[in-house]
C-alpha cells in the first residue's frame, strides 16, 4: 500500500516524532509506514486520516494506484 504520509507531514512541518506522539505510536511505526515497510491497522489508518482532516483514501491507496 502506498501513502502520502511523508508529504502531508512535511506540509505541516511535523517531525516523525511529532506525528508519532499525536497518534500515540512509536517514531519507528511512523517511519515504517512512510517507507512502506509496514501497513497500519485500520484503526491507525483512520486516526492518521483524521489527523490530517482527510479521507482515508486520500492518504492511503493500493500499490499501482496513484493518490490524489
Amino acid at each position, binding site marked *: 500500500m502506498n501513502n502520502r504520509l511523508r508529504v502531508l507531514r512535511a506540509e505541516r*512541518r511535523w*517531525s*516523525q516524532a511529532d506525528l508519532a*506522539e499525536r497518534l500515540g*505510536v*512509536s517514531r*519507528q*511505526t511512523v517511519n515504517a509506514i512512510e517507507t512502506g*515497510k509496514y501497513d497500519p491497522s485500520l484503526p491507525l489508518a483512520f486516526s492518521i486520516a483524521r489527523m490530517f482532516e482527510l479521507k482515508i483514501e486520500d492518504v492511503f491507496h493500493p500499490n499501482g494506484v496513484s493518490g490524489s
Partner: protein
Amino acid sequence: MTANCPPLFTERDARAYRNFAGWMTAAMVAFGAATILLDGRLIPDAAGWALTAGTVILMIVAMHSYMGFLRGADELLRKVHLEALAFAFGAGIVAMMGYRLCERLGAPKMDVNDAALVMMICWIGGQWIGSRRYAAEEEQQ
C-alpha cells in the same frame, strides 16, 4: 515520547517492558536459587515446596506482565514481538523433535531446560531481527 525510549518503544511500552523485565529477572533469580537449593537438598521438603510455589508464582506474574505489555504495545512493536514468539516457538519445536532423532542415533539426552534455552535465545534473536527489519531510517522532512 522521550529521547530515553528506543525508537520502537513509546514511553508507555518502555514502562511496561521494564515492569516485565523486573518480574522476569526476579523469576529467573528465584529459579536459579531454587535449583541450587533443591539439587543440593539444602532445605527441608516443606521449604522446598514453598520455594517452588513462590518461583512458579513469580513466573506466572512475569508471563501476565508480558501479556499486558503485548496487549498495550504499539502495533509495530507487537508485530515484532509476535513474529519473534512464532520464530522461538518454531525453533523450539524443531530443536526438540530434531534432537529426539539425534538421541536415537546416540547423541546425549537433552534436558527440557535446553529446549527452553533455545526458545529464549530465538525469542531474543527474533526481536533483534524484527527491530532491524523495521528499523527507522534517518528522518527526512
